[in-house]
């Protein structure tokens, strides 16, 4: 069997917020292409911190982060990472900053220097896939919470990345919207992702292995 490609390799990673105890010390974790990982753990165990380290939004106090087989250290190293790995933030209000849904979704593709024609096509496809057609001209801060959630998912989706990090994508969503999320993820078998969630039922339907993060350790369960 062909050996699976490691996307993210964390080696002896340590991190602490200033003036606080270590969130984790010498953490080791591998994430392979094709994996669909659920990440659970108590509040404050460092799940979101882990995502931010992978995206280069936080800098580790020790250890190594290897992504796509290359060590990532500087801000420039992470530019490529951010283009290929999508992060869905916990709070949709952090993700949406443009006045209209269309402009927010187009923000990513335009940053990737897609042409206007391509961007408009991506926009249309994304809205359709997420069941948001007719949302184009809606004002982002007038959306309901569930709608904001779907639109922020759309902004990540529009980057057309094959690897996603989803931070509590279904918290506070109603059952219908959760079902929609499950369908979206399962309809795209070429995706690899890590999902942070407290919703066991949701993880069961969308992931094929679950890691528990607790006391600075990460273990498969």
């Amino acid at each position, binding site marked *: 069997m062909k050996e699976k490609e490691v996307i993210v390799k964390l080696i002896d990673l340590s991190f602490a917020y200033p003036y606080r105890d270590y969130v984790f010390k010498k953490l080791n974790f591998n994430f392979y292409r094709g994996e669909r990982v659920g990440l659970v753990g108590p509040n404050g165990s460092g799940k979101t911190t882990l995502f*931010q380290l992978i*995206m280069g*939004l936080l800098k580790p106090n020790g250890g190594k982060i290897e992504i796509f087989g290359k060590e990532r250290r500087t801000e420039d190293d992470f*530019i490529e990472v*951010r*283009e290929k790995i*999508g*992060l869905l*933030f916990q*709070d949709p*209000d*952090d*993700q949406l*900053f*443009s*006045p*209209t849904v*269309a*402009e927010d979704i*187009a*923000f*990513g593709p*335009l*940053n*990737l*220097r897609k042409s*206007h024609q391509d*961007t*408009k096509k991506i*926009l249309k496809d994304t809205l359709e896939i997420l069941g948001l057609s007719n949302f184009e001209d809606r004002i982002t*801060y007038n959306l309901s919470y569930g709608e904001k959630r779907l639109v922020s998912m759309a*902004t*990540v989706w529009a*980057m057309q990345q094959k690897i996603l990090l989803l931070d509590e994508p279904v918290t506070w969503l109603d059952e219908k919207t959760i079902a929609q999320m499950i369908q979206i993820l399962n309809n795209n078998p070429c995706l690899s992702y890590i999902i942070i969630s407290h919703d066991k039922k949701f993880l069961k339907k969308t992931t094929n292995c679950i890691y528990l993060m607790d006391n600075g350790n990460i273990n498969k369960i």
Partner: protein
Amino acid sequence: MANLIKEKFSEGDSFLHKLDPRVKIVVALLFSAIVAVTDRSTPLLGDLLFAVGLIIIAKLKIREVILRLLVVNSFTLLLWIMLPFTFSGEKIYILNSLGVSREGIKYAFLLTIKSNSIILVGIALLSTSSIYNLVHALRHLYLPDKLVQLSFFSYRYLHTIHSEYIRLNNALKVRGFKSQTNFHTYKTYAYLIGMMLVRSYDRSKRVYNAMLCRGFKGKFWTLNHFSFKKSDLVGGIVMISCIVGLVLFL
């Protein structure tokens, strides 16, 4: 503040709403500059008429426009209280020991017309575009990227801070807080403001991080390109000739 955030005037389908924001910015800028340096009353009255005319063309709610003018004129009221008594010149009336000077009144009158005309044109031309379009237009007018971003984010975070304030204020209210003249109220408001600043700062960092994650490298790309139509050219030329004509011929 709420007005500013809701962009009340930006929705509509009048000729001015559809006009290219670049044209509008250039015209508004030219108008403000000319009005600011003109000091004869006839052309200024003409300018005021021009401004009122634009408001009519923009089909805006007159009540809302007047409400905004009231804010501006609360400042000009101060000028009316100060200038007539402090300006040297021919005294036309003696109030107790204070002389009211003709020049002072004239000066206050001109300033009132100037400020109202500029505000009216600002409302008719600038508030009829959304902030996002104006920001794009500034970029297309070759304003440096840093300045454009600064103005966009100040606007964007004003909204964030405002909603943060509403959220915290509601949290106070549901726990029975009433503002009174006592130490408890002062302390609570101090906490509220402090918390608001800290939270908005944190949020702004998170929003910026979210932007980085979507490949932001310091440049804003626009989705909808402006197309410069014939009506934009005609509208721009007509307005500019009006403004220039008013100064030259009146």
